[in-house]
């Protein structure tokens, strides 16, 4: 791809910063370098994720047996709300774009930085402020929010807990998301390296680009909805209050007009990462490049039209319900196109099952289950049966955690050597991927059955006949906890005392593998010129950096 690029920089971005201070914490906190910002996001997000996991495990502990176990019902309400808020607004939504998008979008485009580096730093700070506001809302008078992460009316107006502050935090986080989105769109339009046409962009760039558009278009709607909830709480305007003529269902529409597209903000970047990892480990150009690129845009577009499938039981007209059910099926098509193309790429590829690839296999398995059970939920008749049961809980964990969550780890394992210049323990990483698979299914599969049997979601207590499956699920949560500790251990110890990694350990060919690991401050010493298709592995022959012990003639 980048023929003739010579990247011999003395200093990596770890050694050279954008601020006058060369080292010390301030050289990070004030850095406008997209790579440092990506790493700061990684640290913050990892911490919030871990807190979210602990809340999840606590919930599972409470549910280990019927009746009260370790907490009272109000605490349980608080914890599932915080678990949801943290996982959604602080981990899954910003996760891949903020960490890997920031780090790799400019690298894959052959750019020095994003279009607005200072705005990028501002987005990070706004994110952090939003997160801190969530934390503050736990401790100020009124007590932590207990509405669930969907903040449904009219309860969110009636409850005396700290709803206003917590949702204001969500507003602030949304603002950060918008700024990141417009930064990425502008970057893609303005900063592609010479020769990089739209159809020579790596697929991760395509999916981040589509995501950025959703961030721009959907987020303002949740912004205004949140402001309205706050105004209702302070002034009692009546927009969503039936007593004053308003309509709580309107809140649900407004909420899901954002939050359904938001699930594509969560999943599209993950699909982009998959489309990077699969060609690299199959040593084969991706099958149906254009179809994958276009399907990202199609998902982004159709994703807007299906929000009301969350409201089949809320009292919509039957016609509306049927239309939304139909549209929901349509949106499965572009996702399926992607899966077919991935599988077709693997067919006859020479597969090298390194850790990132194993995580992608986890993804395909878990995400497929998530997707298929999504059809059960999208179908009007079956939805009525499993609505707001554990079936839904299982479904969204398979999609969000099994989908985007696993790919977050895949991306981490794939790009960690590039980001840090270190290599982790490959064997441990492989064991980890397997352990995750076991943990995940033990933790969440019983929930499908529980839901089918009628166990409602967000319940603190349950009937004795659910006890066995609940117990299995709780045991799963312990294995999951262990798995996550092992992942953190592996990566942290690699960072502190790992072996130095070579620049291109996996034999990738997109632009980020054309520069040293870790990259220099301005990414490339010389702006690369793009002449190849993004996944053309014949260029390995001419590339400066190739995997150890391999020669390409």
């Amino acid at each position, binding site marked *: 791809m980048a023929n003739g690029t010579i990247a011999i920089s003395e200093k990596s971005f770890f050694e050279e910063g954008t601020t006058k201070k060369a080292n010390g914490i301030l050289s990070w906190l004030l850095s406008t370098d997209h790579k440092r910002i990506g790493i700061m996001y990684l640290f913050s997000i990892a911490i919030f994720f871990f807190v979210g996991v602990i809340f999840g495990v606590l919930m599972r502990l409470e549910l280990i047996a019927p009746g009260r176990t370790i907490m009272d019902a109000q605490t349980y309400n608080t914890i599932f709300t915080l678990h949801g808020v943290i996982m959604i607004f602080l981990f899954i939504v910003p996760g891949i774009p903020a960490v890997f998008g920031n780090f790799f979008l400019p690298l894959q485009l052959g750019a020095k930085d994003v*279009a607005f580096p200072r*705005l990028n730093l501002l987005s990070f700070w706004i994110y952090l402020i939003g997160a801190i506001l969530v934390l503050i809302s736990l401790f100020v008078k009124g007590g932590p929010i207990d509405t669930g992460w969907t903040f449904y009316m009219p309860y969110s107006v009636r409850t005396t807990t700290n709803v206003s502050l917590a949702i204001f935090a969500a507003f602030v986080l949304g603002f950060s998301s918008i700024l990141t989105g417009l930064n990425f*769109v502008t970057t893609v339009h303005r900063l592609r390296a010479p020769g990089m046409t739209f159809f020579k962009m790596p697929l991760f760039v395509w999916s981040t680009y589509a995501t950025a558009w959703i961030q721009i278009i959907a987020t*303002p709607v949740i912004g205004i*909805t949140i402001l309205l909830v706050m105004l209702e709480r302070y002034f009692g*305007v009546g927009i969503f209050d039936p007593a004053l003529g308003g309509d709580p269902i309107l809140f649900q529409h407004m909420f899901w007009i954002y939050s359904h597209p938001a699930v594509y903000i969560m999943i599209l970047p993950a699909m982009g990462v998959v489309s990077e990892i699969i060609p690299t480990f199959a040593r084969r150009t991706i099958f149906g490049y254009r179809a994958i690129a276009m399907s990202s845009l199609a998902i982004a577009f159709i994703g807007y039209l299906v929000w009301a499938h969350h409201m089949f039981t809320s009292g919509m007209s039957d016609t509306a319900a049927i239309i939304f059910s139909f549209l929901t099926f349509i949106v499965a098509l572009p996702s399926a196109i992607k899966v077919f193309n991935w599988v077709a790429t693997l067919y006859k590829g020479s597969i090298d099952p390194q850790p990132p690839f194993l995580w992608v296999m986890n993804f395909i398995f878990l995400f497929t289950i998530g997707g298929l059970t999504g059809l059960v939920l999208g179908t009007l008749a079956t939805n009525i049966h499993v609505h707001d049961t554990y079936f839904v809980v299982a479904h969204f964990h398979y999609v969000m955690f099994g989908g985007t969550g696993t790919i977050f780890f895949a991306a981490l394992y794939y790009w960690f050597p590039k980001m840090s210049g270190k290599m982790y323990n490959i064997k441990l990483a492989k064991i980890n991927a397997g352990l995750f698979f076991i943990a995940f299914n033990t933790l969440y599969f019983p929930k499908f059955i529980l839901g089918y049997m009628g166990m409602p979601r967000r319940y603190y207590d349950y009937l004795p006949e659910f006890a066995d499956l609940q117990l299995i699920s709780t045991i799963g949560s312990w294995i999951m906890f262990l798995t996550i500790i092992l992942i953190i251990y592996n990566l942290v110890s690699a960072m502190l005392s790992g072996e130095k990694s070579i620049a291109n350990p996996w034999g990738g060919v997109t632009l980020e593998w054309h520069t040293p690991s870790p990259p220099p401050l301005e990414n490339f010493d010389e702006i690369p010129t793009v002449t190849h298709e993004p996944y053309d592995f014949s260029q390995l022959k001419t590339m400066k950096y190739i995997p150890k012990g391999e020669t390409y003639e």
Partner: protein
Amino acid sequence: MSNHSAQIAHKHRDDVGSRMGMWLFLFTELLLFGGLFLIYAVYRHEYIAQFRVAAMELNTTIGALNTIILLTSSLTVALSIAALQKGNKILSILLLIMTNILAFAFMINKYFEWSAKIHHGIYPGSEHLLNLPNGQILFYGLYYIMTGLHGLHVIIGLVFLTTVLAFIITGSVNKNNYVKLENAGLYWHLVDLIWIFLFPLFYLIQ
């Protein structure tokens, strides 16, 4: 941008990119108000008669005056950009100050308008309002929310314009580098545009 000498002086500068970023941002602002317009449409449809009754109470004169003020200010900011492009710094500064004054005047008008209403006991949650039929409560609720949010944008616009004014005075925004002023102008046009929709929806349709 066509000016070559400027590009050499600032190698990281990308005016087209900056403008693109601003347009995208304005787009999100439109969508923010879009949500409110949607709600307005839903409730207007549901309570046609009562919205009409409530709208009669609003002071069309003040509304019209404010419309004229904002339209004029859009003109002055556009002229200010043109003046700077032609290199007439003083004129540009004067026109921008004009814009600020007009924005201020808008807020003063708004203050009198709101306080008159509040004085009559019409504000969200007031006893007087709660005794009115639902449609009227919603009308006034939306009136306060939408003009309030718009007013907030006027204030943000004021801050934005004043900051750029300072840049022009110190010279960092100048004949060859005026994209910041253009962006402030774009933002101001948006504030104006939204008002042009709010005015008929609340004051004129009766």
